């Protein structure tokens, strides 16, 4: 009897943890870069946002003939309160099942160009979802935004590293690889 109660309790606790968690999904799927010399791309950077969200592979070099532009856009979606109230009428709400949720989508685009040569464009998007219950909602939107922007940044870093040969050809520094 006691064991059965503990099992049920553990199940509900586990369920609570699962539904309250935050999930990050990133596109596109990219293969991890091969080990070797770390790749860096010296360029003039056109980006005015927080440096923490800018791909670290690109290094600011004011004299470079290569221009890197980076921009991102964020989209927010969430459950409205009237729907949450309806969901809240369910007895399972007291067990911590979700009454609503939020999504933050970050869409980022990075362009590498050099005068007189066709540029290369890389894009990534990250969707951060969270489910809210009356006991809490996990991370808030500031943190969801941070997770989304870090996810697209890391995805773009991998894409750039995987594309090192083509980028060095474009920048005319092929011999330095």
């Amino acid at each position, binding site marked *: 009897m006691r064991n059965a109660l503990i099992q049920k309790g553990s199940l509900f606790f586990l369920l609570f943890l699962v539904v309250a968690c935050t999930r990050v999904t990133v596109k596109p799927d990219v293969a991890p870069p091969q080990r070797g010399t770390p790749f860096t791309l010296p360029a003039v950077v056109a980006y005015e946002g*927080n440096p923490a969200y800018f791909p670290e592979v690109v290094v600011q070099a004011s004299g470079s003939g290569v221009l890197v532009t980076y921009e991102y856009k*964020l989209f927010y979606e969430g459950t409205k*309160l009237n729907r*949450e109230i309806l969901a809240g009428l369910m007895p399972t709400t007291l067990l911590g099942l979700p*009454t609503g949720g*939020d999504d933050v989508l970050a869409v980022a685009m990075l362009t590498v160009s050099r005068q007189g040569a066709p540029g290369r464009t890389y894009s990534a998007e990250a969707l951060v979802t969270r489910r*809210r219950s009356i006991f*809490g*909602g996990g991370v*808030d939107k500031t943190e969801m935004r941070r997770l989304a922007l870090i996810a697209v940044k890391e995805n773009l870093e991998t894409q750039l590293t995987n594309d090192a040969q083509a980028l060095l050809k474009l920048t005319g520094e092929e011999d330095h690889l």
Partner: protein
Amino acid sequence: MRREVLIGAGMFAGVVLGGCAASGPAFERVTDIPQDKGVIYVYRPNSIIGSAVRYDVFANDELVCNLVRGGYCLHYAKPGEVEFWGKTEAKGSITIDVKAGQEHYVKGSLSMGILLGRPNLTLVEPKDAMGDLTECKLQSVQAAKTEEGR
């Protein structure tokens, strides 16, 4: 007897909910945005759901206003990241990238909590915000500070 109870309940609800609606100057769009700053409209639609709950909204550590249903406030900020947040039984926040000379719209609402609704702030597109904002009344920082001091 039953009728009197219903009338009493109706009057109580009227006082509680009606007292929470915003009062102040009607919505007016800012036409002269400073060159070196962005303007942020923080507003709460005039919806009766959750209207008994009001909360202060801060931009980083600066008090912006006390957000009630049908109210909006203005905040000018230098370009960069600014975190808008409010707190009832839990904190709700959103960080936006303020751009010089541009308008940004932060919509305040509530999500469900145990005892109280929790602040739920979100960034909205201008076309979506305008429909709600035209029905909103301007709230001042002074009023929020007075409220906070009580």
